[in-house]
């Protein structure tokens, strides 16, 4: 006779596991399908491409998640100690080969699919007529610089940095190319036109992130890192810092104003007029 200990043979833990895991699966599925807390709408072509990859990954991992959690709940319920002897089995070679191959194929396939969107962001350069904007992170604000009418960015000299005289970037006064540069604390850009941002930092590492662009990129002191995109929807979007940069990290914030071409030209003219004064 096999003994049945009441403390180990009870069905209660098995039923509790089944309930908890079913609630976990159901709530997770619901929140993903209802999109209760979700991504904001993407505003760039590459953003939509990234969203498609998100969707594919949600489907694959979602299926595995549901199957694995329910299998666990079922196994625990089905094989709780009911007094019968355990099945003696050491393993199964065929099963090992099967699940190894299957996961390898699925995981690598996802990785290869995702490479396309990554390539769109990082491999191809921007088109030659892209609007270049320099983005500088510093404790704890963003500065955005436009080349102005001459199309040339002026030289920067770290010794000239002085926020109190309105020169937070250290524009070198001896370089004529810098005279017409526009420096503003928010990002203004036209829609439906290629944009190239040149990311840099003055002090420590910051990270430029706009949710709707689906792009995040560290700003590393000593490097100038380009990213490019084209926004297709006007609106105001929040720019945040996503790499710990010191005590003011949480309020390092700016607005990205995506404007129609006409509005942008008007804004640019106004800035140039101010510079000329």
């Amino acid at each position, binding site marked *: 006779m096999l003994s049945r200990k009441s*403390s*180990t*043979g009870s069905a209660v*833990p098995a039923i509790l596991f089944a309930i*908890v895991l079913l609630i976990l699966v159901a*709530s*997770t599925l619901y929140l993903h399908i209802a999109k209760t*807390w979700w991504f904001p709408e993407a505003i760039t072509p590459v953003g939509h*491409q*990234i969203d498609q990859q*998100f969707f594919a990954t949600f489907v*694959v*991992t979602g299926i595995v998640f549901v199957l*694995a*959690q329910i*299998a*666990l709940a079922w*196994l*625990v319920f089905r*094989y*709780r100690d009911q007094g*019968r*002897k*355990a*099945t*003696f*089995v*050491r*393993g*199964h070679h065929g099963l*090992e080969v099967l*699940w190894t191959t299957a*996961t390898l194929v699925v*995981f690598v396939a*996802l*990785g290869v699919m*995702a*490479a396309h*969107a*990554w390539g769109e962001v*990082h491999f191809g350069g921007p088109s030659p007529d892209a609007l270049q904007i320099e983005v500088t992170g510093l404790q704890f604000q963003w500065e955005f610089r436009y080349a102005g009418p001459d199309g040339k960015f002026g030289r920067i000299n*770290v010794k000239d*940095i002085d926020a109190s005289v309105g020169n937070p970037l250290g524009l070198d006064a001896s370089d004529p190319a810098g005279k017409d540069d526009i420096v503003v604390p928010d990002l203004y850009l036209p829609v439906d036109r290629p944009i190239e941002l040149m990311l840099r930092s003055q*002090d*420590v*590492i910051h*990270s430029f992130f706009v*949710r709707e662009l689906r792009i*995040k990129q*560290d700003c*590393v002191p000593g*490097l100038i890192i380009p990213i490019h995109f084209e926004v297709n929807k006007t609106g105001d979007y*929040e720019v945040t810092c*996503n*790499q*710990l940069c010191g*005590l003011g*990290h*949480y*309020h390092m914030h700016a607005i990205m104003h995506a404007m129609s071409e006409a509005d942008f030209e008007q804004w640019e003219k106004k800035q140039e007029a101010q510079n000329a004064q």
Partner: protein
Amino acid sequence: MSAHAGSIHHSEAPKGWIRHYIFSLDHKIIGTQYILLGLSAVTIGVILSLIVRLHLVWPNLHIWGFANGIVSPEDYLRVITMHGTLMVFFVLTTVPQSGFGNYFLPIQIGAPDMAFPTINMLSFWTTFLALIVLLASAFVPGGATISGWTSYAPLSAVGEIAGPGLGLGQTLWVVSIALFCGGSLMSAINFLGTTIDLRTKGLSLMRMPLTVWGWFITACLALLAFGVLLAACILLLLDRLAQTSFFIPADLSVSGVVLHHAGGSPLLWQHLFWFFGHPEVYIAILPAMGIISHVLSTFSRKPVFGYKAMVYSLTAIGFLSFTVWGHHMFISGMNPYSALAFSILTLVIGVPSAIKTFNWLGTLWGGRIHFTAAMLFAIGFVSLFVTGGLSGIFLAQPALDLYLHDTSYVIGHFHLIMGVAAIFAMFAASYYWFPKMFGHMMNETLGKIHFWFTFIGVYCIFMPMHYLGYVGEARRYASTESVNYMIALHPVNMFISFSAFVTMSAQLLFYFNFFWSIKHGKPAERNPWHGTTLEWSVSTPVPHDNFAGDYPTVYRGPYEYSVPGAADDFIPQHLAPEQVAKAG
């Protein structure tokens, strides 16, 4: 394998209290010291996370110990930095490996002690010193550092000028981690030497319990990873104290001051740190995997499904863990082409992890499952490992990491797979081995209540963090008030905080159970779980040299449960074939 011919050290227990309990050479005492060190660190770490959760939902709440009772932004960063450092280094790295490993590895392989008992003692006291230095950094002028547990340069390199706590506090942080590396390196050598040289007669590699495999592979990783971190820490110290420029580039202007450094690379720190940091994730989880396999097999009354596949997958994870560090750096500015290689390798390391999960499910299949507290935590581990592993599939793809990097999604992911999963293994190990360590049983009913609160609780804490990540909530924000889309997430954060308070309170059950049972628990039999491995063959309390001079011979693999034809549903490893009782 026959190292016991000349006893490696005398088998008499030392007489004095200090030699016995403080500067002990006995691996069991040292293991217990590591566990108590981890328990102290986890207590502080949990209190710090309580402060984080309180501050995020009630920023104006007065909290004892802070200037004017208010947690300032720099205090918040100090708290998260200290929380991360304590948990990753002094809890996840020490307890499963140096704690339980120290205690049970020699016994499970039939050895009298670790190969180098003095080095073992030195490892512990170096680690202890590292903890003291880290805690001391909170009390120096400027306070503890604010640069996060990853201490990215140049924030961590340029000194006080970049913010509070970045002076002496940061220096002490680096010193503490360097000391910790030293302790871990010594410990790794000991684990390797012991496993290779001190196995008892008959204990071939493929007869070792999976716990021993877990500790062995982890020691390999620790030996290779901590050396690199130690070097990185020394370079960072030189940048800070000797005006070198390993991590500091030219033309930095910090707080209006131009620095006289040139030629360094901030990305170098990240490469060195994550070359350690990713194996570190596996240093935390491989011993846990071993423990979970061990416990699942014992309480399913079945051999581990696919023992060899389990060994090979542990080895594969160990090897691959050194090839994936770049997935922490997809958005760092590193060459974007290398991201593709790191991405595919990261997805490939998911394969041996999936193999382990399938084999755990296979172990349950056809079993006769006993729901002990240890088993509940082991089953819970499998569920958490699946959930936390699948979110890793997102982060492994650079195109998706572009969005998710440094959001709450990452916090949810690594807490489930690295933090909570490893802690579930520590709980399972505690409930499972407590009878052998202290001669008393822990209270099973309390243990089960503890499990259900913790299991449901951690899902309520960490699942919503994934949703916060979808919305884009950034991590390491002292306040979400400055960003409109984060303000709207307040109710979710409230839910997480409440779940955290309940879950943390439930841990008091464990503390009570643990300390109360040391004296007052039901007296334990020699082999209360009907286990097969060598730790259950020795008497309780375990003699000073474990086997009282009578070293066992091993005749079979570690998980011979429910073998057809045998009278009992378990056959201990040390039982000679002629001693095995036949059924009927």
